[in-house]
């Protein structure tokens, strides 16, 4: 007779006889639960990351299987967060994998009522053309007293607090070289 099919397997018996007197762990685990393997166990690799929400900067471990993110957990090694994540950090897997996430380049023409599909390369070319034109249209060599300004007022940018330092560095560097000064981010807001 299979001992596991007897009353000895009842949770209350396991609770009283096993190492889980409060019934919070193994004693109350069902066979079904026992058979489940955590996604974190079967991942191909674990990549170290940082939570993208607030500025506490909690450590994250990103579990990847078949080149897809399957789970994001807190990193217990982090001296700041000690493995914890808040509801947002815990939901960051969904930030990456949510079916509602936009992954398609879209273009809306002037006065159009709909989006249309367009290639990223083509869109980047269109933007480069517009930047050159707007830069030139709104170029200011000097102020009214003849002092050098060397700038354009034709374009502006907003964003950066959610971006990487390296990205902000290239953004500031490129816009400054173009003479565009109206570059801002959330720190002002």
């Amino acid at each position, binding site marked *: 007779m299979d001992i596991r099919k007897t009353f000895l397997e009842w949770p209350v018996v396991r609770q009283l006889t096993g190492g889980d007197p409060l019934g919070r762990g193994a004693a109350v685990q069902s066979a079904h639960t026992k058979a489940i393997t955590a996604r974190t166990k079967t991942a191909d690799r674990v*990549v170290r*990351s*940082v939570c*993208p*929400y*607030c500025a*506490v900067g909690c*450590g994250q471990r990103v579990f990847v299987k078949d080149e897809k993110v399957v789970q994001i957990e807190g990193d217990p*090694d*982090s*001296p700041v967060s000690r493995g914890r994540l*808040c*509801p947002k*950090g815990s*939901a960051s897997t*969904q*930030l990456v994998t949510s079916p509602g996430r*936009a992954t398609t*380049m*879209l*273009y*809306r*023409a*002037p*006065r159009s009522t*709909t989006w249309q599909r367009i290639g*990223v390369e083509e869109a*980047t070319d269109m*933007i*480069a053309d*517009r930047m*050159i034109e*707007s830069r030139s249209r*709104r170029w200011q060599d000097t102020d009214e007293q003849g002092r*050098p*300004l*060397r*700038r*354009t007022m034709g*374009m*502006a*940018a*907003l*964003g*950066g*607090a*959610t971006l*990487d*330092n390296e*990205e902000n*560095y290239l953004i500031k560097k490129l816009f*400054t*070289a173009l003479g565009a000064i*109206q570059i*801002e*981010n*959330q*720190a*002002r*807001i």
Partner: protein
Amino acid sequence: MGASFGRGGATGFLQDLQNADCIVIQGSNMAECHPVGFQWVMEAKARGARVIHVDPRFTRTSALADTHVPIRAGSDIVFLGAIINYIVSNEKYFHEYVLNYTNAANLVSKDFQDVDDLDGVFSGYDPQTGKYDTSSWAYDANDDEPAGDAGGQGDESEESASSRSAGHELGGHGAALEHTKVKRDETLQHPRCVFQVLKRHYARYTPELVQEVCGVTPEQLLDVCEAVTSNSGRERTTTWVYSVGWTHHTVGVQYIRGSAIIQLLLGNMGRPGGGILALRGHASIQGSTDIPTLYNLLPGYLPMPMVGTHDSLDEYVAQIASPDQKGFWTNARTYTVNLLKAWWGDAATAENDFAFDYLPKLSGDHGTYATVMSMLKDEIDGYFLLGQTPAVGSAHGRMQRLGLAHLKWLVVRDLNLIESATFWKDGPEIETGELRTEEIDTEVFFFPAAAHVEKDGTFTQTQRMLQWHHKAVEPPGDAQSELAFFYLLGQKLRQRLADSTDERDRPLLDLTWDYPVDEHGDPSAEAVLAEINGVHLTGEKAGVPLSTFNEMKPDGSTSGGCWIYAGVYADGVNQSARRKPGREQSWVAPEWGWAWPANRRILYNRAAADPDGKPWSERKAYVWWDSEQEKWTGHDVPDFELKKPPSYRPPEGAAGPAALRGDDPFIMQADGVGWLYAPTGLLDGPLPAHYEPQESPISNPMYSQQASPTREVFSRTDNYSNPSGDEPGAEVFPYVFTTYRLTEHHTAGGMSRWQPFLAELQPEFFCEVSPELARQRGLVNNGWATIITARTAVEARVLVTDRVVPLRAGGKEIHQIGLPYHWGIGGDAVVTGDSANDLLGVTLDPNVHIQESKVASCDIQPGRRPRGPALLDYVAAYRKRAGITLDTGNELRNLASGANGGSRSGGVKEGAS
């Protein structure tokens, strides 16, 4: 922070909160907005620390604190001022610390007059321009110098002062002084010494005034005063924690100054369990000011040059720091040259001032709100939104969205189809009929962006620590990182202009823009980090990364894109990627990530030791002078020259770092000490003084001057303000509202309302009201309410809760309403709703051009708001009823006979000196 201590940014680190004996959280709901960081507050509490939460609302932070002090939003300076008054009048300050490490003994110019002498303004105010000539705030120079010269700012243009001080509170640096030969009174008795000026200034900030203005009882105030003073000194330390509950005010910078003064008086700066912890709300908001996507800054808090005052490299450097002052800012030329070398490489030579003239010049405020107003005038063609959605996240959403409709082209790069990308088809103005899709000329490009796990790079979190995140997977579909996009865009722009001979194109064509790429053509983030860190260009060490900014040279032999980040790539190793487990290190954890500057975790930590270099107490030992090894040592990297002994006294005529004494702990300050009083560098006053918010139901009881006389107002038909105080019509908007965040959402919702989990947890926009207010206005729990200001009306679900309590202030019962601001209309988010930010107008702090979004006045009515064009009529009717005109709320100077000069409470003036 910059104006008080010399550097922006939090002065300590989260884990160090555990060492505090008392923690005051004010202007922050840390438990809900920084929940994981809050564990360190709980650690401190478990060790016996007293935790105090000062906030208009009872939140989870209050629930876990020992004490919650409900306060009227917008009155914090009175509360802080009363603590200062208590400390000074009861002689509870840390005398030795104050005398040696602050400017308490310095004498202030004879010309200085305080707000009490001039009915609400400091000396130097020009009612025509609404600005100060700050020269009378200066120190009193020594006899051999003409008086009033020490401030050194009198001959500067206002624009220049603006650009520099704007940098300060966004993380900037201590202001310049001509020199440091200042009259002092070491007894602190001279009537014009900073200490006595401070004492007089705050004498009016009595418990009675606190009750009158803040709605806080004298007992509650006294309890806080006793807690912070009994938990400060040699043996004990107190930490102050704030976040945007302080910065989002017309006097936001002065709120922070208030806590800086307290922490200096109590001797809590630079010490474990002390300091001021600024909690930032975005993964890299500290990083985005260090390496700024901000108009007024260059990397490392160097200012963007201003036309007229920064026309050459020499003028520019001279404006940042006088060669005769103390501290590390005298190396500004070195830092600037290294940046220019990083950007323009071989084209930057000593002969051409390292291509300084390649930098475009500013001529005023080019901040985001100024930009939107330019859009509305059709002065801007194109706009890039990079992970930010002003249609929901910025104050006055309607102005933002109407601005977008004026653009020729708009680029939105985000993870989700946010409201700023779809305003043209489903924004609120389409419903009201103000915009018609078929008439909006704006071309919109939506680029899907890569998420944090789909790219390499660093975030700089709230304690100035850079942490590298590794790429785990490729971005899906068309998504790409900003790094890849901007690198490619730069290449395309350079190709298009490659044959240009136009001088204006030289900065772009000479730009160093060549990074190694991977198999997808994406640039290496590590190579960019190495450029930011800096490198030796010539000599034996050519090609070797810089180890610290002290290796930088002003002659072009080194380069480095952000001097404060020098060292993050020391030895060619990505120090930000270090992940030695916390449990295997000291509690300071210096081998996890890398903190600027020089991996220092507590700033100004020289102040953790007494003037002789000994710890103030064994219990609070942190960094000290080791007389045997003849160097500074301790638990952290000393924020001081390692080999400079405490006894060091600079020789006559010394300047820069060499002029810092062995007991000058604030090494970025022009005089090496913390500033209780700011003789220069701020535009709205050398000491925090109370002003009412732009919109307030009560009159300022302190003087005729109602609101800050230097706040930036915008008198426009799309930016009406509600009447305040005794003005007719103020009764139409009798309530105060404040905006805030929930744990389950992130700012405007772009990273949370698209996720089913988070959307389900917090599905709807709601308003928190007290049972008393609910009765007064007939609001029903879980029903609808409409909240109205002069700008618009929004609807929200009603949450009746005793978490908000009515307070008595200004002789009235004040009801406060809490509004989380995460929702927006339009887009394809899982949950949508009206946006609290639409209620706000645009009124700004003059130092940093940040809007007042944490307090305004409103009305609230039961039921849903009108739809379509009827909404516009509804709000217009409110304006009419309140008699609102373009002048309402926009008068900068109020004199006794003026519109705001009505009844004043005589009682509180008894406290005046």
